[in-house]
Each structure stands twice: as C-alpha cells, then as structure tokens.
C-alpha cells in the first residue's frame, strides 16, 4: 500500500499566508503567543515586520484586528479555536461581526484531535458559535489543498471569515485541480441510497465509508461540505430528494455544527431522516488523537453504521 501524504491543515494555513504575502503587501498577521503551534510562525519567519504578537490576550487581539480592518487593511488573527471562537466570542461578534469587517480568523487545534491537551483545549463548539454571528463565513477545510484554497478565497471575500484548522496531520485528498468555492459543497462520490455529508477530517473517513458500503452493495453519495456557513442548501436539498436519507459527519459537537445546519435545511425544504455523527454533547479528555477519534466514534465504521440506520429509517 502506497504511503498517503499527510499534512496538518494548520501547516497549510501558515504556508498559505507566507505564499500570499509574497504578492500581497497589504495585510498583517497577528497571533497570541501560539505562533509555533498555529503555524503563523511560518509567516513570521519570512515576514517578521508584518507579524504582531499580541501576547496571551485573545480578546484584545480580536478587537485590535477589527481596528486594523476598520482602516481598510486586511488582517489575519490566529489562536486555538477554543480561544479564538470561545474566549473571544463576544469580541468576534461585536468588534468584527457587527461592523462586518474584513478579518480572517484562523483557528487551529479545533476538535477532539487536539489530543493530549485534553478537554480545556478540545474545542467542539466553535462552528456552532461562529455560525450564529450574522454575516460570518465559516469554513472547515478537509485537507491541505482545501485549507490553502480556503485561505486564498478568504482574502478575496468581503466580510469576516472564520477558518477552522486541525493539529493532526491528515491525508491529502484533493489534487491541484480541486476547485474550492466559498458556500459550495462538493459531490465526491455519486450514490442513491443514502447521502453522507462530511466536513473537515471526517471527509476522509466518509470516503472510506463509501468503499465499505459499496462492498456491501449500498450506494452512498459523498458530499464534502467545507463551508458551514453559508451552507450550500441546493446540494443538501438535492441529496435529500434523490437519496431520501442523510448522515452528517463532523469533528464537532452534534449540537450546532454541520449536523444542525443540514438538519435545518432538510427540515425546512425536504424532510427525510438525518442522523448526525459528531461528539455527543460531552467534553473530551486527554489521549493520542487517533485513539480519541476511535473512542469518540469519529471513524468510517461509525459512518457506515449510521448510514445503514438512516436507510432503515427512510423506509418506515
């Protein structure tokens, strides 16, 4: 079996910033004493004069970024998802969201796959929090290709963008020809029995689930949903109508993230069974990331199980 190339999306984030900075002199990057971990350090190393460390003060950093954006300049702020979306939530809402400012929030170390740091650092609520802010765009890239594309797209976007990156190295799924567009889901596999809508590192698991289901004679449609907000309603409604059952999969609480966003659309437009795979309203704990993903049931086998349940339900 050939070795799959693996890159953590936080690494992609840092690389994309450094790449962009070569041709775009009009932005600065800020971090809150985590640049080595968030990988804004890659940018800092190449463009030290354009990097500002706020120290351990995420709320201040977010509002400072708003002030910079209010002067018409682009700015990227970065911290762990727990602190960017959690601790600084109200600053993101009031300083950035309300005035609809062009700030890119690069939130790393999202989800249970933070691993050993444990529950205080395993942010499972950020998609939910960010999704409720009017005008906020929320993106959860699946791999290196998509993460870099999301950063580039955010720079072209008018309004605030929250992008969620992971600590864990994940397989590179998409080639250089992959087209990323904010607000668009992507059908990765055709299928008619059930649709699996996945985001972030669950996309790779969904593709594995496709193979397992296929061997069992079940035709699953696989949709990658990088943008959680605005959610791609059309692709969801089409899937609901054509396959009659949906499973969502995300490395996030089952409350408020992709599963909720999809359920809202399906409930309003074309009610069919929607089963949500995610962290079931509980805190995480310390351990190796891959063990936690197994224990918390965020694997292809869990998707397969839910897909079968969803199919069974649609016939009732």
């Amino acid at each position, binding site marked *: 079996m050939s070795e799959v190339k693996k890159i953590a999306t936080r690494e992609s984030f840092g690389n994309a910033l450094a790449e962009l900075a070569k041709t775009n002199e009009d932005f600065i990057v800020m971090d809150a004493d985590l640049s080595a971990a968030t990988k804004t350090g890659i940018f800092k190393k190449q463009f030290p004069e354009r990097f500002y460390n706020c120290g351990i003060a995420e709320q201040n950093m977010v509002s400072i970024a708003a002030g910079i954006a209010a*002067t018409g300049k682009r700015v990227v702020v970065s911290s762990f998802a727990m602190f960017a979306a959690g601790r600084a939530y109200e600053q993101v809402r009031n300083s950035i969201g*309300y005035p609809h400012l062009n700030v890119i929030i690069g939130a790393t170390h999202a989800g249970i796959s933070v691993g050993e740091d444990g529950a205080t650092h395993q942010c499972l609520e950020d998609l939910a929090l960010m999704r409720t802010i009017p005008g906020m765009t929320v993106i959860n890239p699946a791999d290196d290709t998509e993460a870099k594309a999301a950063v580039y797209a955010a720079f072209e976007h008018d309004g605030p963008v929250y992008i969620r990156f992971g600590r864990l190295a994940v397989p590179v799924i998409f080639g250089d020809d992959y087209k990323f567009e904010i607000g668009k889901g992507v059908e990765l596999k055709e299928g008619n029995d059930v649709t699996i809508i996945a985001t972030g590192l669950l996309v790779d698991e969904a593709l594995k689930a496709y193979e397992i289901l296929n061997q069992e004679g079940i035709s699953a449609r696989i949709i990658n949903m990088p943008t959680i907000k605005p959610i791609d309603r059309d692709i969801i409604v089409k899937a609901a109508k054509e396959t009659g059952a949906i499973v969502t999969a995300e490395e996030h609480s089952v409350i408020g993230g992709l599963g909720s966003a999809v359920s809202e659309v399906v409930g309003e437009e074309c009610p069919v069974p929607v089963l949500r795979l995610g962290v079931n309203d509980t805190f995480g704990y310390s351990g190796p990331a891959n063990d936690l993903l197994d224990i918390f049931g965020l694997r292809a086998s869990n998707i397969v199980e839910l897909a079968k349940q969803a199919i069974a339900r649609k016939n009732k």
Partner: protein
Amino acid sequence: MNEQTKKMLKQTACKVRIGIIDAVHSAKSGHPGGSLSIADILTYLYFEKMNIDPANPKMPNRDRFVLSKGHAAPALYSVLAHRGFFDVELLTTLRHIGSILQGHPDMKHIPGVDMSSGSLGQGISAAVGMALSSKHFGNNYKVYAILGDGEIEEGQVWEAAMFAGNKKLDNLTAFVDYNNLQIDGTVEEVNSPAPIDKKFEAFGWHVITINGHDFDQIEDALNQADMIIDKPCAIIAKTIKGKDVSFMENAVGWHGSAPNDEQHAQAIAELKAKLETLM
C-alpha cells in the same frame, strides 16, 4: 488659546449638550450623564484638533476617533451633527426604528463614526489597532479614544494598554472620562480603578491629568501628547457627570435614564440660558 476661539468652543459645547438632551429625551432612553461629561473633550477634538472633513467622512488619511464608552453615543452624534457630518435635526431620531442613530455607535451607517462600539473594553483595542495600522502602513494619522472610568474595570482595557505601551504607539491618545460614577454607584464603591494615572504609567503610557471641562487644559494636554515619543498618552480628565444640567450633575441616577417632558424643558432652559451668557 485665544479668547475668541475659547468662546466659540464654549458655545459649541453648549449646543452639543442641547443636542444630547434633545436626543435622549426623544429616545425616551439612553445615557445623558456620561454624554454631558465628555461634551467639552469631544467638541475640542472635532472642532479644533482632528484632521477630518465632514464632506468626506471616509477620507483615508483622516484622524480616527473611537468612543470606547459607546453608551455616550448621544455626545458623539451631537458633535458630529454640529460639525456637519449630518443634519442636527436627525438627533431626535436617536434610538428610533429606522434611524441611523443606533443606541450605540454604528460605523456602517453613521457618517463620521470610525468604529462601532458599545461593549465596554473593545473600543480601546480597536483604537490600538487603528494606531498600529497607521504606523505599520506609514499613514501617520492620529487616533483618539475616550474610555469611561467604570469601563476601565474591564480587563481588556489593560490588555490593550499593555500592547499599546509595548508597541510604543505614540500616535494614540486615550482620554479617561473620570466622572467617578457608574451605573451602580461611585467607582470607588463598585470597584475602584484608582490610581488610574499610576496604572497607565505602569503600562508604559505618558499620563496627563486635567480638568475635562477646561478648554485650555484640554488643548495643552493634546499638544503635549503630540510631542511625546514612543509612548501612548492617557489623559485623565476629571469631569462632572451630567455637566451643565443642574439636576443631572453628579447624580448617579442619570447614567442611563431619559428626562421626561418637564425635566427636558428645564434642562433645555438651563442650557439655553447658559448659551445666552456665552454669546
């Protein structure tokens, strides 16, 4: 400052106060006390100090102002209106459905408002960001902010102060409206931020303490701030909450309530009588 300029400023500040009272009365809610206390500082900034153009409110190289104590929006709106950013008549639409004059400053819709604010502690950070942007991109405009004395109980204020001091943002000047009252009582009773001057000094700021109703002192302090290198400036302005409306002065109850028709009439009568003496 020559006497003619001072006279004009006093007249303008009095008109600004009339605008504040009319606006809050019309809204039937809002924050008159802390608006009246900063009327003189704002008048000086917008009529004498800042490089701004009411005909071109988004002029890229303009000086910036952030009302970190955003609840004093009626003062900012009244100054902006009297300075010509929008019609003075608009002041009595404050807080009404469909008005651009939101309860707290809204940069998206109000000409002349450089930053949305209202959630305490965030405005000063935004002002720091603007000062940083000015320096980083070589624009050389100045940034002014007004903090409340109660507001500086917010931890974020000191995060911002630490950053501004560390990054030597000498193009930033922040006033502290030291009127000694907040919603629940005196700042000493609630949670004293004193000594305010020593705190800012400890964070690497140059500190000047003045009477916030004395135009000579406001001018001198701002001129001094222009000369300070490598440090942001904090101007601790001792003020009277509710200034120039007899029954509102130093009365904690006027932090966040509007005058009724009778009180409105009395307040306006007092301010108009004062304006007469200034003409």
